[in-house]
């Protein structure tokens, strides 16, 4: 049967550098007097050496390409979902600027149309003012005659 020492359990954290200073000093001293722990530590170090015998693995040629392809696929799925989700949650916020823009365009169009009244229409308006005095202009001779004869009063 394998001999054991109550301090053997400390050898794992000792080897892993996980013991506080005072325990390290204790184990170092203990190892100088305990054959069981010395053998145990040697065995653990052998195991460590065996594990480090294994080599790293090479990265295959198409690893990067495959990975970035997956990233692209993810991005392609994510972007429509992002916009769809945003509109679903914020359609009121989204529709407000659209409506404001529409009203602004209508307003600007109306103002521009008012300013761009054709010349003929302007003349017509001016002539309408003259038509108010049409009777006066048409009967100017009579009025002058009446004035000469001294007839006064409102015409």
């Amino acid at each position: 049967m394998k001999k054991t020492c109550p301090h053997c359990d400390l050898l794992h954290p000792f080897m892993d550098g996980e013991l506080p200073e005072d325990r390290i000093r204790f184990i170092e001293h203990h190892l100088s007097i305990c054959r069981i722990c010395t053998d145990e530590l040697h065995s653990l170090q052998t195991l460590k050496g065996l594990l480090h015998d294994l080599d790293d693995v090479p990265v295959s040629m198409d690893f990067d390409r495959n990975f970035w392809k997956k990233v692209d696929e993810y991005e392609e799925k994510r972007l429509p979902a992002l916009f769809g989700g945003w509109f679903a949650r914020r359609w009121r916020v989204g529709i407000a600027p659209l409506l404001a823009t529409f009203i602004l365009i209508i307003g600007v169009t109306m103002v521009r149309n008012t300013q761009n009244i054709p010349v003929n229409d302007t003349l017509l308006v001016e002539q309408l003012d003259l038509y108010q005095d049409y009777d006066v202009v048409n009967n100017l001779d009579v009025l002058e005659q009446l004035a000469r004869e001294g007839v006064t009063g409102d015409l």
Partner: protein
Amino acid sequence: MGLNEVMGPDNEIELMLMFSKGDENAFRTLYLAYRKKIITYCYRFFFDQELAEELSQEIFLKVYKAGSRYKPTARFSTWIFKIATHTCLNELRREKYRTRIDSIDSEDDMAGREIKDESDNAHESIEAMERKKRISQALRSLPGNQRAALLLREYHGFSYKEIGDQLNATESGVKSLIHRGRENLRNELHDEFGEDS
């Protein structure tokens, strides 16, 4: 620790924060720095290169997806290996792995990649290759948590506390996992230790 030979932990966190703000080049830098480490970790878990690369891509994709929500609560290396560990442990639980492992055993492909790679080296003895195969088999025979704890400790130099974070375990729990893992490995590899052990 040897994990951050090129970049310091602060730089890695900085890069991840830059990525969270949309800088994809920052992610590329981290990806290149960790690609081989993560593939090697997954490979040591399953000793199947195809599966290791498949899982590694899944791990990096998780990191990519989590980019915008990243909060630097630990070293970047601790965080990415936590994702890697959970991905590997999940894979271990899947039925897929159960069926796959049968086919690997039947083809004797376990550690075959290791052996195949080494076969290029004319100086490598048959005994050394056989020993590597036995080590691979011994590692693969360990329960998932013990395997993860040992790999994180032996090959990636994480502290017991960091491994505890990665495995959602206490430091004493990690100590116990590593202890039992080593004992199991020694039992499996007793021929390698001579008559004393």
